[in-house]
């Protein structure tokens, strides 16, 4: 049971890396908390569901479409909301409120258009039947989502460390004011990061019906809290940290389910508080922030 829980936890946690990755990027670059991240994820799931039921599109195809559409949609949303927000006195705090409002709007529109009941995609799309690894039976969908997550982590890493825009993004992460002073188009850099973040959430959403069974318009809040735990346990601004955070979350959740199941939800919260108090810079972090 122990080995089974650990193996399952690694794969399950990889999915939550994908969930947290975008949230991490936005917080790192803009110092704002996107409380609507979970709702964007939900929209990705709804898109996959709608594309399958109306056009019969395979979710892996939908994932590519969602990636492009959400990336592009992120740019106008950024310009409409974030620059104005960042001008306020306490933008970090106000972002919590603003994005809460946005998440309410997203939830309301979704509920009005498709109703509040559970939606899902047929399991067969990702293949029925287990993959057996060291005697542990795992759903096939977990492998697809873990692969997507690994690709996403590598892509974000590549973007940040191997492209020009990525280098500028890291400069903004270190200090927005200094980046502005050196003539970097901070808004453009941030807008792209915002778009990437939405795209990552959207892709995670496409897999959500397979990982969580179904999606509902009000699933966002729970997702957010988990995503926070994952990115704080890892390290802000570092995609590899989120990878580690996801795996730690996944493994410890599965161990809790095995040995203390009714207390399993206590875990992400305690993990988050514990890491913040003991090592606020995250497990992989250098001392980058005052706490």
């Amino acid at each position, binding site marked *: 049971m122990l080995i089974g*829980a650990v193996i399952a936890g690694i794969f399950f946690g990889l999915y939550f890396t994908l969930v947290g990755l975008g949230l991490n990027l936005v917080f790192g670059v803009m110092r704002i908390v996107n409380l609507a991240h979970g709702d964007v994820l939900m929209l990705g799931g709804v898109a996959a569901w709608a594309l399958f039921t109306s056009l019969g599109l395979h979710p892996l195809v939908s994932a590519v479409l969602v990636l492009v559409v959400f990336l592009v949609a992120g740019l106008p949303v950024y310009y409409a909301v974030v620059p104005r927000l960042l001008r306020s006195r306490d933008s970090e705090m106000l972002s919590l409120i603003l994005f809460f409002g946005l998440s309410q709007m997203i939830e309301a529109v979704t509920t009005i258009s498709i109703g509040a009941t559970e939606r*899902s995609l047929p*399991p067969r799309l990702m293949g029925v039947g287990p993959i057996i690894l060291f005697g*542990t039976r795992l759903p096939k969908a977990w492998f697809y989502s873990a692969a997507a997550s690994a690709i996403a982590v590598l892509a974000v890493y590549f973007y940040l460390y191997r492209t020009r825009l990525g280098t500028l993004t890291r400069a903004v992460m270190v200090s927005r004011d200094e980046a502005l002073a050196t003539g970097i188009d901070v808004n453009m850099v941030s807008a792209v990061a915002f778009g990437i973040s939405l795209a990552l959430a959207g892709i995670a959403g496409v897999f959500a019906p397979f990982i969580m069974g179904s999606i509902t318009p009000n699933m966002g809040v729970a997702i957010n809290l988990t995503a926070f735990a994952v990115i704080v346990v890892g390290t802000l601004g570092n995609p590899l940290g989120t990878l580690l955070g996801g795996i730690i979350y996944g493994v410890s959740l599965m161990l809790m389910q*095995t040995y203390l199941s*009714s207390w399993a939800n206590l875990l992400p919260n305690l993990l988050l508080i514990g890491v913040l108090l003991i090592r606020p810079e995250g497990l992989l972090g250098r001392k980058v922030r005052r706490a």
Partner: protein
Amino acid sequence: MRSKLLALGVLAASGIAMARAPAQAQPAAPSQITIGELYASSGPYASISMPVYNAFKMWVDETNAKGGVQMQAFGNKRIPIKLIAYDDQSSTATAATLYNQLITQDHVDLLIADSGSVLTSVGVPIAREHKQFLFDVSGTGAAFFSDDNPYIALMADPVSTIWPHYISDYLNDEGYKEGIRTVAILYSTNDFTGTQAAALKGFFERDKKVKVVYYQGVPTNTSNYTVLINNIAAQNPDAVLELGYVGNDIAFLRNLQDSGNQFRFVFTIYGGTEKEEIEKNVGVSAVANTFSYVPASNYEYKPEIGMTQTEFRAAWEKKYPSGSGVAFGANAIYGYMTGLVIQRTLETTKSLDQMAIHDAVFALSGKLKTLDGTFELRKDGAQIGEVTPLGQLQPAGKDDLKLVAVYPPDLANGKAVLGK
């Protein structure tokens, strides 16, 4: 000062006189009966609340199309219904305010609670405080019902401890004969499923035949069961009972199929009670041959009032075509059935006084037969009528399942098929 007192005295005296005088003259009939109801269009309870609300609206429309309810209290005049419904968005704080709004501002004649225990809970003390009778649709919380509170009655969902006894009866009886010896119980830690799980555990321990080898609670928002299923499989039980909400059952059934584990007897609550929705979300193969409750939406009771289940379903699908986001299922039946109870109550009540309403509702107990089965109340207002047979989702033709009642024998219309 003295003249004021005198006037008060006269008023009081005439008030007493009026109250004492038998209703010789018919009291003036109201132009309409107002019914207040809460629903949740969003949030965690929307999926159980909206079907009730939509179905209740169908009853209101149906009634008003006939000119209203024929009330004996007002010389058999037909009086139309006016529905005042507010959206509490699954928030108990908002619901509390709105219950109060319906009672104190809108002065509704009848008050209907929102679905489920959590949103009903805040309404119970408010209704009692204002001496307003509460039509509790599906709030089964044990704390709501006490002998000293006459202002509540549970319409549809029987209290959670009554529901599951056919599961243990079947397993201890026919299941035992077929070689079932061990059972695993996995439940979501909330009021509704927690009480059923505890009741089941008690039944098994009392009867000492089938043994409980795994008994675990998981948080209600648990959305993956892969490791839990692996852990259950390690105990090698003959029967697995998973008690959760719709989202839990969907995730469990999908993960069970993914895991490739086979158990001889698998039970979920919503596989049967919200059959359409579960089938849509997990696929026919994942739910085939599992067991569930047989709710009224899948069992043809012979109603003495209102539409039959088939007629109601046809009417529902005409009004809310599939894709409208509100699924047909047990909750839809509950909403319509609440309308029927209210109809009979209004027809027979002596007046619109809330205690008269209470008397009229309780007078129906054991006598009212709707598409939801028999309506029967315990003295404290809890529902005990509706029996929910144990059923099995058996394959019927290609890509279709039929929910067959398999236990108890007098309600069964098929035979259970256990896995190997």
